[in-house]
């Protein structure tokens, strides 16, 4: 038992609930929000140290032992994601101080952000499949609200699509949980793993696994990314950046968890399906990224590509690739958010999303430009930036397990990433400067600080691989050995 495990969930929850009580005091709201994220980060780091020393930390909520109550499990993998999501959220939060309009700030904007993070962190930490569903709902509902907060036309339009698709997938989630419960009689993930292993994962369970795969694929935009480009370009920058960094990644997390902990007995079926999906996702994402001349869309399709790439790690199901995938996942959360923030700043300056209509911004905004440049190359996976190491390991994994095609698609998709981000850079920052300082729609005042923060994190992730690596490697090796997780939750067998 370790009550600290709940803190990453409770702190934002509490903050959010408090913020509901006095929506009009904006400064206090801002302060509390920042403090909350810092506190979460602190506890998560502390927990990470504990996990390093004492093994996986668990908390049986209400004191009910594992398969009966709800259990929270903090292993290295989930804690890394919690920390990353806090950094990302902090970046977006600071960014929104300047960029989100005051009307939104008074309509519970900060509370919703806190709730969103509650949902995200909870999804990472929970060890119970139904509880995962509930956390997903918390997160989704908060995201519905944030997406439509402000009620602009495009927000409503995107909101309807986003909500509808997620409702469908949530219903399927309930259905899948129901089947799983019917067959195995339990909801605890560790217990599920034990029982599925005992039954040898018969075909019915594999079919249920596929059901789960489809559901999480919708959430993580793996192959089913149709909702993503439109809904991520609708809300204000800070919000879409937050979505870009976090929401799909939670789905990815769920896929990782499910297919390493529970359904790992039939990789011939499930994991090859995942491999196909990953390949198709990267191809379609690349085509989409090349196709458009709209900053937000290009970046949105880049999310799709990255998802495909990360999922390779689970498709080839090998430790090096998994390590790489986790590394790339963390990197992608940071860098994707950063790119969205930077793209948003560009859009804010020019007042349009169309690349055709912007040009030469590096003249007045060199820092913006170079940050975008570095972030793009980090995304492409150029050493020593953060995307490289993950990409290397994933590539290594695909080649060593003879998934050559996936590896090649992964490299080609990097090319699409390069082409598309450079398209933005060259159109937006290079060329004749058409916009004098006075003509700009907004200023970048206060927007560069969070971007600098995130880029520092990204650089650290790239150059300081050696420091981060023990944690990532431990996370991957834990994922490859479900016994560790099971023992931590259910006690020694």
């Amino acid at each position, binding site marked *: *038992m370790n*009550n600290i495990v*709940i803190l990453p969930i*409770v702190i934002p*929850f*509490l903050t959010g*609930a*408090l913020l*509901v*009580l006095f929506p009009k005091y904006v400064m206090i709201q801002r302060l509390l929000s920042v403090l909350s994220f810092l506190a979460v980060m602190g506890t998560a780091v502390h927990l990470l140290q504990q996990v390093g020393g004492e093994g996986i930390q668990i*908390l*049986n*909520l*209400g*004191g009910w032992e594992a398969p009966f109550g709800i259990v929270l499990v903090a292993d290295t993998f989930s804690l890394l994601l919690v920390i990353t999501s806090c950094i990302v959220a902090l970046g977006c939060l600071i960014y929104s101080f300047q960029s989100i309009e005051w009307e939104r700030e008074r309509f519970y904007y900060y509370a919703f952000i806190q709730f969103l993070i509650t949902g995200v962190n909870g999804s990472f930490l929970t060890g119970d499949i139904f509880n995962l569903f509930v956390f997903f709902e918390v997160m989704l509902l908060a995201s519905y609200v944030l997406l439509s907060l402000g009620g602009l036309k495009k927000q409503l339009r995107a909101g309807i699509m986003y909500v509808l698709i997620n409702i469908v997938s949530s219903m399927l989630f309930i259905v899948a949980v129901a089947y799983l419960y019917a067959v195995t009689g339990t909801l605890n993930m560790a217990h599920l793993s034990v029982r599925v292993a005992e039954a040898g994962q018969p075909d019915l369970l594999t079919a249920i696994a596929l059901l789960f795969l489809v559901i999480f694929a919708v959430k993580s935009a793996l192959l089913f990314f149709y909702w993503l480009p439109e809904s991520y370009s609708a809300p204000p920058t800070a919000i879409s950046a937050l979505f870009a960094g976090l929401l799909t990644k939670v789905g990815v997390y769920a896929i990782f968890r499910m297919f390493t902990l529970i359904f790992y007995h039939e990789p011939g079926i499930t994991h090859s399906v995942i491999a196909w999906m990953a390949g198709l996702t990267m191809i379609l994402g690349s085509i989409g990224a090349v196709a458009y001349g709209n900053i937000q869309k290009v970046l949105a399709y880049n999310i799709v590509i990255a998802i495909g790439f990360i999922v390779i790690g689970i498709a080839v199901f090998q430790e090096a690739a998994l390590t790489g995938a986790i590394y790339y996942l963390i990197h992608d959360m940071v860098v994707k958010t950063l790119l969205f923030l930077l793209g948003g700043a560009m859009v804010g300056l020019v007042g349009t999303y169309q690349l055709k209509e912007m040009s030469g911004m590096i003249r007045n905004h060199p820092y913006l430009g170079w940050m975008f440049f570095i972030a793009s190359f980090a995304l492409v996976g150029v050493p020593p930036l953060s995307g490289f190491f993950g990409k290397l390991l994933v590539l290594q994994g695909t080649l060593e397990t003879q998934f050559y095609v996936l590896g090649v698609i992964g490299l080609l998709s990097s090319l699409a990433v390069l082409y598309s981000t450079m398209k933005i850079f060259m159109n937006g920052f290079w060329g004749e400067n058409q916009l004098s300082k006075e003509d700009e729609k907004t200023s970048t005042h206060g927007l560069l600080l969070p971007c600098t923060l995130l880029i520092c994190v990204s650089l650290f992730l790239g150059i300081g691989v050696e420091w981060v690596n023990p944690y990532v490697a431990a996370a991957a090796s834990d994922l490859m050995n479900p016994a560790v997780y099971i023992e931590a939750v259910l006690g020694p067998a």
Partner: protein
Amino acid sequence: MKINDVILQTVTKIVTFIILTFAIYLFFAGHHNPGGGFIGGLVISSALILMLLAFDIETVTQTLPINYKVITGLGVLVSLFTGMASFVFHVPFLSQAHLHFYMPIVNEEINIATTIIFEIGVAMAVVGTTMTVIVSISRNKGDEE
């Protein structure tokens, strides 16, 4: 065209109280019989909805001047705090304590548990949310003006 609602309003006045009593009963019954915070909260809201149906928002707000959004927040906080009390007692989060009393008068075993406080929070949140939704929709004039 004015429509009088005398019959409805008279009945409502009586019925609301029956419903509210029943709601409170359900709330406490939940421990051993069907019921609980959720249902209690929902039934309270349905009583309020009935009042809104029979009268109008103005009147009801005058009688019950409550900011439902705050109620929602408070409800969530109350529930959360019962969970967080466990930090003080060094027990797992959300641990509930319960005591068995023997009440000689009604000749029944009464059972007080911290879950009651938890459920109060739940009920408050439910009422708050439902009413927030209903009232905000009804207040909205839309494009009709």
